C-alpha cells in the first residue's frame, strides 16, 4: 500500500456519548474502528457504517461518518445494497452475535459466499444484552440465562468455522481487552478486497457473568506468523477455529485473494450506480422495444 497520511482519531468523533454500560467491551471496538479508519486515511465521508439492532448496533451513532442503523438482523443485507449502490464507499458493518449469528445468519452466510467487499465486525458477547440477558447463538452450552434457567441445551455457533466454509476471504478474531491488536485486525479487514469477518470478544459486563474480561484474559493468545502459523492454510484455520477452552486463539485465522462480487457486475465498471447518468441510450431503447414487435 502506498504511504498515506494517517488521520487523527478525533476526526471520527460524533459528539454523541455512547449509551453502553460502563466497562462494556463495545467501547474498545468503537475506538479500534476509529483507529483503523484513521490509519487507512479514510475520510469520514467515504466511510459507511451499517448496523442492525442491539446494544452494539448503536455504534454508528457514535462515529462521525455516514451510517445506517437498520433493522434487527438486516445490517449485512442493507450494507450489501449500499456497496452495490456506491462501491466507492468503505462499508463496515457492526453488530452483535444475536443480530448477525441469530436472526441475520442467512445474510451473513450468503454475503460471504458472494465475497462482496464489506467488513463485518461482530461484537460477540455471547448474550442478548439489550433485551436484558437471554441466551444468544454463541452462548456456551449449559450456561444459565433468563431464557435458559436449566442451562443452555444448544451448541454455540462457531462463527469462524462457519465463515471458512462459507467463502469469507478474511477471517480474524480480536478481543476488546486488546484494542490495538483489534485495530490491526479491522484495518486489515477494511483494506482486504473481499468479505472480511472480525469476530470480537466484547464482554457484556452486565448480563454475562461467565465470559468476562478476566475469563478471556486467562485464555487468549495470538496466532503468530513468526511462530509458523500460516493464514493461507485452510486446514490450519479450521483447526484453530475449533480451539476453545483453556486456550483460545486471536488474530488472523485465514486470508485469501479471490475475485470479489463487484468484479462480476458489468454495470459497476462505469463507476458507482448512484452517480451514473439515468438516461438510456436511444439505440438501446429502440432495440429493447423491437423485441416486442
Amino acid at each position: 500500500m502506498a504511504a498515506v497520511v494517517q488521520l487523527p482519531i478525533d476526526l471520527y468523533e460524533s459528539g454523541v456519548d455512547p449509551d453502553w454500560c460502563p466497562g462494556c467491551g463495545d467501547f474498545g471496538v468503537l475506538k479500534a474502528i476509529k483507529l483503523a479508519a484513521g490509519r487507512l486515511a479514510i475520510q469520514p465521508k467515504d466511510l459507511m457504517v451499517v448496523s442492525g439492532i442491539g446494544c452494539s448496533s448503536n455504534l454508528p451513532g457514535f462515529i462521525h461518518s455516514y451510517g445506517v442503523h437498520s433493522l434487527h438482523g438486516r445490517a449485512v443485507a442493507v450494507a450489501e445494497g449500499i456497496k452495490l449502490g456506491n462501491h466507492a464507499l468503505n462499508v463496515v458493518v457492526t453488530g452483535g452475535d444475536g443480530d448477525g449469528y441469530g436472526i441475520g445468519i442467512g445474510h451473513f452466510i450468503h454475503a460471504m459466499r458472494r465475497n462482496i467487499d464489506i467488513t463485518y465486525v461482530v461484537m460477540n458477547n455471547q448474550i442478548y444484552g439489550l433485551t436484558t440477558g437471554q441466551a444468544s447463538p454463541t452462548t456456551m452450552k449449559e450456561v444459565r440465562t433468563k431464557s435458559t434457567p436449566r442451562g443452555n441445551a444448544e451448541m454455540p455457533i462457531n462463527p469462524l468455522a462457519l465463515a471458512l466454509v462459507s467463502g469469507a476471504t478474511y477471517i480474524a478474531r480480536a478481543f476488546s481487552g486488546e484494542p490495538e491488536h483489534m485495530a490491526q485486525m479491522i484495518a486489515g479487514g477494511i483494506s482486504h478486497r473481499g468479505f472480511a469477518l472480525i469476530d470480537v470478544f466484547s464482554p457484556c459486563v452486565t448480563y454475562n457473568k461467565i465470559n468476562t474480561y478476566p475469563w478471556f484474559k486467562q485464555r487468549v493468545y495470538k496466532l503468530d506468523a513468526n511462530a509458523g502459523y500460516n493464514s493461507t492454510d485452510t486446514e490450519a484455520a479450521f483447526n484453530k477455529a475449533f480451539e476453545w477452552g483453556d486456550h483460545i486463539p486471536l488474530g488472523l485465522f485465514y486470508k485469501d485473494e479471490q475475485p470479489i462480487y463487484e468484479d462480476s457486475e458489468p454495470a459497476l465498471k462505469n463507476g458507482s450506480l448512484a452517480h451514473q447518468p439515468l438516461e438510456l441510450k436511444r439505440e438501446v431503447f429502440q432495440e429493447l422495444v423491437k423485441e416486442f414487435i
Partner: protein
Amino acid sequence: MREITIGIGGAAGDGLDKSGDTLAKTAARLGLYVYAYNSYQSVIRGGHIWLRVRLGEEKVQSHGDRLNVLIALNQDSVERHAPEVAPGGAVLYNSDKLKLDGSLLKDNVLSVPLPVGSLTKPSGKVQPVMQNTVALGALVFLAGLDFDTAANVLNDTFTHKGQAVVEQNVKIARAGYDYAHDNFVPLGYEWSFSRIRRPFVTGNEAFALGAVVAGCRFYSAYPMTPASSILHWMASHAEKCGVVVKQCEDELAVVNLAIGAGHAGARAMCGTSGGGFALMTEAIGQAGMIETPVVIIEVQRGGPSTGVPTKTEQADLNQVFGASQGDYPRCIIAPTSTTDCFDSVVEAFNLAEKYQLPVTIISDLLVSEHPETVEPDALHQDVPIDRGQLVTSFNEPNGPYKRYAFTRSGISPRALPGTEGTLYVSATDDHDEGGILISDVFTSPAVRRKVQEKRMRKLDALLAELTPPILQGPADADVTLIGWGSTQGVIEEAVAQLAQSGINANHLQFKYVYPFHSAEASAILRGCKKTICVEGNYSGQFARHLRAETGFTVDEHIRKYDCEPFEPHHIVEQVKAILEGRSRSNDLTVDEAREMAYHYIRTRLGDKARPAAIARHEPNGADEATWNIEIVSRETLEKRGELSIGVETGTTYWWHPVSA
C-alpha cells in the same frame, strides 16, 4: 367490431405458447389488436394449458366471452373445449391422433381434421410439435389472416436456429394453409388490416422496460411466480441497460438490498408475490422511517399461504395496505392495464425519490403475465425523471446539515452518502432532525410528535400530485361499477355489453390505493344511483378500504375468487341479476360440476375417462341436491361409473363404479 377468439389447448410441452406467440405476432403485425391469456389448467395430469388469443380491429381488453376457433392439440382439449365453440367457428385437430365426436359441436361449427402425417411427409421426419404449425397455417387461411406475415414471424422466431429450421416451419405452415384452402371455405372474416405495428408485451415486461427507462440501476428478487418474469427480463438485459440485478437468498435480503442501494443513491426496485412480500414488510417500514426511496412490485397470485401459484387474485390488498408496524408514509399504486404498468413504474420511481419513501406497486398475475398489444407510443423514452431535492454540496452558515430537517413540506433535502459536509446516520429508531436517536436513553415526546408529523405530511403534496379517479361513462347512469387495478379493461367491456342490453352503466376505477382521494371519491360515489364493487377476492377488501376512506358503503358486490380472471359476461350476468332482484347463488353450476368431475377423475381414475352426461337430482338421502355425473371411458365411451357431487357444498357423496 370485427374480432375473433382462438383457443389453443394442449399439454405442457406441446409447444403451445410458441404457437400462440406466432399467431399473436402475426395478427399484431397486420395491425390487429391482440389480447392473450394463458390459463394453466390444474385438472389434468401433465399440466394442461389453455391459451386464448383474442384479435380485434379495435382494442380488445380481455380474453373475452366467446370461443370462435379451437386448436386442440390433445384429445382432452377436443372434448373439453369443442362444445364451447360458437356457431360459425371451427375446431382444428390432428386427425391422425385425435377424434372429434360431432355431437359435441354446436350447430354450424366446422370440423377441420388435419392429416398431419401426410401434410408433413414431404418434410421428412418432423417433431410432434409440427402439428401446431400445420394447424397455424390452416388457421391463417380460415381466419382470413395473411400467410406472408405469418411466414415472416416464423422467420424471425426461428432464425437463430438456422435457415433450415426456418424453411421447414414455413413449408409446413404452408402445407396447412394449402390444405385448408383446398378443402374448406374460410370462416368469413374480412379484416381491414391497418398494418400499424404495435408492441406485444406483458405487464411484467412493461414494468421492466419502464424501470430501465426511468433509470432503474438496481433490481433484486427471489424467484416467485408470477413476478419472476421481471427478474428474467432484467437479468437478460442487465448488461445492456447498466443495471445490477441480484437474485438474493430470500425476500428479506431482496428488499433490504434494494433499500441499501436506494439509500446509496441508485434508483432501486425489487419484485415479488404475496408470500415474499409478507417477508418484506418490516423493511418497508424501515424505508419509511429512514426516508429511503425504493420501489416494490407485488404481483398477486391466488392466496392465502402457498395458495394457487399460477392463478390470479386481488386478495393481497389488506396485506400491502397493512404492511409493517407503525404509521409511515408510503404510496401504493395498482396499475390498471399493461400500458399503465409502464407508466406506473416510471411514476413510482419519481414519487419514491421526490418524497423519499417506499412505493409499492400492487399488480396481479392477470395484468403481469398476459400479453397484449399496446399502442406504438405506449412504450416511450421521453419520461419525466424527478430525483427530488438532492444536496450535492453544503456549507454551514446555519449549523450542520440536518438529514431529517423539519420542513413545512415534510421533505428534507437528501444528501447521498459520500457527499462532503453532510454526514449523517439514518436510524430505524426514531430520531431528531439530525438523525440522533430519541428512542433509548433520551426520549422526547415533543421531538417524536414533530418528526412523525414531518414524515406523514409528505403525503399531502404527494396526494395532490396524483390524478384523482374519474367517472367513466354517463354521469346519470343507473348503475356504477367500481373496480381497482387490473379490472379496468374487463369492466369497460362489461359496461359496453350492458349498454347493448339497454342497461345504462358507468364505471369508476381506482389506481391509487394509498394515499387515497377520499374527498374526490366520496363526491363521485354520493352522486351515483346504485354502486357495485367488482373485485377478485372473497371478502371485498377494496370495498372495505373504500368505506374506511370515504364512509361510503357500496350497495352490491361482484366477487370472484376461483382464481380465474373475470370475463365480461361474469360481470354482466351478475349486474343483471342484481338489477332484477334475483338472488345470486353459490351453488355449483353444471360447468363447475364437470370441472370437479375432471378433478376427481384425474386424482382417482387416471386420464382414461371423462365426464359425460350430467343430471341434477333433488335431495334424496343427502340434505342437498346433487349433480350426478356419468363417467365414461375416453376410448370406448362405455360407462365407467357415476359420481355424485353436492350442488351446495361441492362434496363428493359417492362414486359408484360399474362392476366389471
